[in-house]
């Protein structure tokens, strides 16, 4: 029975529920302790041991239902259920057994034979949906499907009426067996393979260039970005006061203990407060970065969830504050809205910086980080380097994330090289992974 639990845990891991070795030991102990008699109790108790968040509990429920559902093999719709209760022989290896089981209508025995055949050919290794057909066939052959087919063929050749009827019955049984086999492999795929495929796709996507993606990948991408935002939020959302423990504040201690003749009854320790992040994020949503704008906005949205003190702006030529929209609306609503209201115009960086001066200059101080998301292509307008220079001097950090490849910087109307001296960080950023690293960097500077 231990094998049941370990392979169940393997299925959980494939579905992105991280089960550590210690936890699997606990799971085995739990299963041994509560037993397999009470399904609900087994489920509840395993859930407390291996699934450690609400999402994981949902996944756990799904996998548990798939995994422990296989005892329900449908009984064949035959009218002669004379010996249906005959216990199975367990390991049905050869084809003769399969024939016997079909004749004696032994569903339990067949289920067990299927189980052990599946183990022998390692159906659990299934990873892609395209493998289902071949694995079903191989599993059934392992159970002796060939012998069954040979028998049907032989009976057909005999040509007698009786033999034909028998062949007909066997053929029907074969059909049932095939569909049972397909269901079985399908369940295995859902338990072991599906999540792995999904992860493979996501891994591929996180490295793909944002500009090269199909519409088809968008949904998956959005999920990926949301998960990234969550991860970042978990890591950085809480700014805390750091106490510099172990360092005595001597001046304050002496002052506090003056009443005790200088004997230090009361000690005062040094403490240090960490700074709160204060961020101004500006996102270019013009035509030249149209393909990226979605992702930049998604990123901006996730940032607003992480950083409490953030003002966000978007521009094509005029700069518009979008903080309120970001706070009030869901990500699915806010991005189309911003793109519709502001997006796809022709860029004017100089104008945007001038607007920033007007709208946010008072709010800028040495604790502020300014994040610019854009390609720096300004349609040959005045880039207002003077404003950027002033800004850069006043703030803590000026971070510029550019979706263009480095080789294109400075070509055509790109002003990015002229802005470069005034940025503290300038990075190329055109995959989800780049985004995550960049944001992680920005947030870490406040930790």
């Amino acid at each position: 029975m231990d094998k049941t639990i370990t392979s169940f845990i393997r299925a959980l891991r494939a579905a992105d529920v991280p089960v550590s070795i210690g936890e699997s030991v606990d799971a085995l102990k739990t299963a041994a302790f509560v037993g397999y008699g009470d399904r609900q109790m087994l489920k509840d108790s395993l859930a407390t041991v291996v699934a450690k968040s609400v999402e994981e509990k949902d996944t756990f429920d799904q996998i548990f239902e798939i995994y422990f559902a296989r005892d329900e093999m449908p009984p064949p719709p035959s009218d002669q259920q004379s010996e249906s209760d005959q216990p199975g022989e367990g390991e049905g290896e050869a084809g003769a057994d399969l024939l016997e089981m079909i004749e004696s209508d032994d569903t339990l025995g067949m289920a067990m034979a299927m189980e052990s055949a599946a183990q022998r050919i390692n159906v659990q290794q299934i990873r892609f949906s395209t493998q289902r057909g071949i694995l079903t066939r191989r599993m059934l052959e392992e159970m002796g499907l060939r012998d069954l087919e040979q028998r049907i063929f032989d009976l057909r050749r005999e040509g007698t009426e009786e033999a034909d009827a028998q062949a007909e019955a066997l053929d029907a049984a074969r059909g049932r067996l095939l569909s049972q086999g397909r269901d079985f492999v399908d369940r295995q795929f859902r338990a072991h393979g599906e999540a792995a495929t999904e992860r493979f796709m996501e891994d591929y996507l996180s490295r793909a260039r944002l500009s090269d993606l199909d519409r088809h990948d968008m949904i998956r991408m959005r999920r990926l970005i949301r998960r990234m935002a969550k991860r970042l939020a978990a890591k950085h959302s809480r700014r805390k006061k750091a106490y510099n423990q172990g360092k005595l504040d001597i001046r304050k201690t002496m002052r506090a203990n003056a009443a005790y003749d200088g004997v230090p009854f009361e000690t005062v320790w040094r403490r240090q407060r960490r700074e709160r992040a204060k961020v101004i994020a500006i996102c270019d949503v013009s035509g030249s970065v149209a393909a990226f704008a979605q992702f930049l906005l998604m990123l901006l949205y996730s940032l607003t969830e992480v950083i409490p003190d953030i003002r966000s702006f978007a521009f094509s030529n005029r700069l518009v504050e979008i903080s309120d929209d970001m706070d009030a609306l869901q990500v699915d609503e806010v991005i189309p809205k911003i793109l519709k209201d502001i997006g796809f115009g022709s860029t004017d960086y100089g104008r945007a910086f001038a607007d920033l001066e007007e709208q946010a200059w008072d709010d800028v101080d040495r604790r502020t980080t300014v994040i610019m998301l854009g390609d720096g292509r300004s349609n040959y307008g005045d880039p207002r380097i003077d404003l950027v220079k002033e800004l850069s001097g006043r703030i803590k950090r000026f971070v510029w994330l550019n979706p263009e490849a480095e080789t294109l910087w400075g070509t055509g109307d790109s002003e990015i090289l002229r802005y470069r001296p005034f940025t503290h960080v300038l990075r190329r950023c055109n995959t989800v992974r780049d985004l995550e690293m960049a944001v992680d960097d920005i947030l870490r500077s406040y930790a």
Partner: protein
Amino acid sequence: MFDSIDQITDGLASVGYISTREISTALYIARHLEKPVLIEGPAGVGKTDLAQSTAKSTNLPLVRLQCYEGLDESKALYEWKYGKQLLYTQILKEKLHDILGDAGTLDQSFSKLHKFDDLFFSEDFLEPRALLRALRHDSGAVLLIDEIDKSDEEFEAFLLEILSEFQVTIPEIGTVKATVPPLVMLTSNNTREISDALKRRCLHLHISFPEEMREREIVAARVPGIGDALLRQLVGFVHALRDEDLKKLPSISETVDWARVLMLMHADHLDSDLIRSTLNVLLKFETDIQSVENKIETMKRKASGQKVTS
């Protein structure tokens, strides 16, 4: 009480805590595998109460450690009574002369002083805090580490030894091991993600808002004498509220408070004016109250509609 799951449910019910199958199972497994339970869920669903009720129904002492930012081991585990140590040295200053009187050299006086080393770092000067107290109870205890998510990450790491081995190490004294491992419960409101290392060592129990049936039982247990009709209506109304988009959803404790308020006002059924005048018991934000206020009629109807079906 921990012989079977039903027994746990009954035991908790006897002290007024209406348990669910999941909750009882988690406690059952926790006791028998000797593992701490991490309880998560929205505020006010009875996470802390579960620990208190468990302690009450098992007659074990409850040791509670409230976590907050900056909590460290000197406040959670033990501390040397620094003031007392200092006071003693001041008082003993005169005695020092007697002890060292016949010592000729510095070496001799030093080795004489050495004998008194352990005196100042002994049990007499040790101030045990919650965690140490929980380990030292001979009969075992229920240790409640409340709102672990409010503490710092370093403190979580510090808890690992206690949670997996039920022992702590005090450098000056040695390792203190629990004779009877306490039943440990940690609660978290999910203001931040708990570290994997801690999660690995704990069982995980998620308590969400209760179903209507269970909430009715809870309110009936907490507010004795409440009429059946009112109970159905008010729980139905709270459930309708939880479907709304609110800043803060009303929790069980707020349902109970509201029931008490309605009892005090001698209400035997809900009407819109009554709801409007007492809504501030359920909803704690002005914007929430405003957004609900003009929907009261429909929600009340919805609530009583549920009453018919249930």
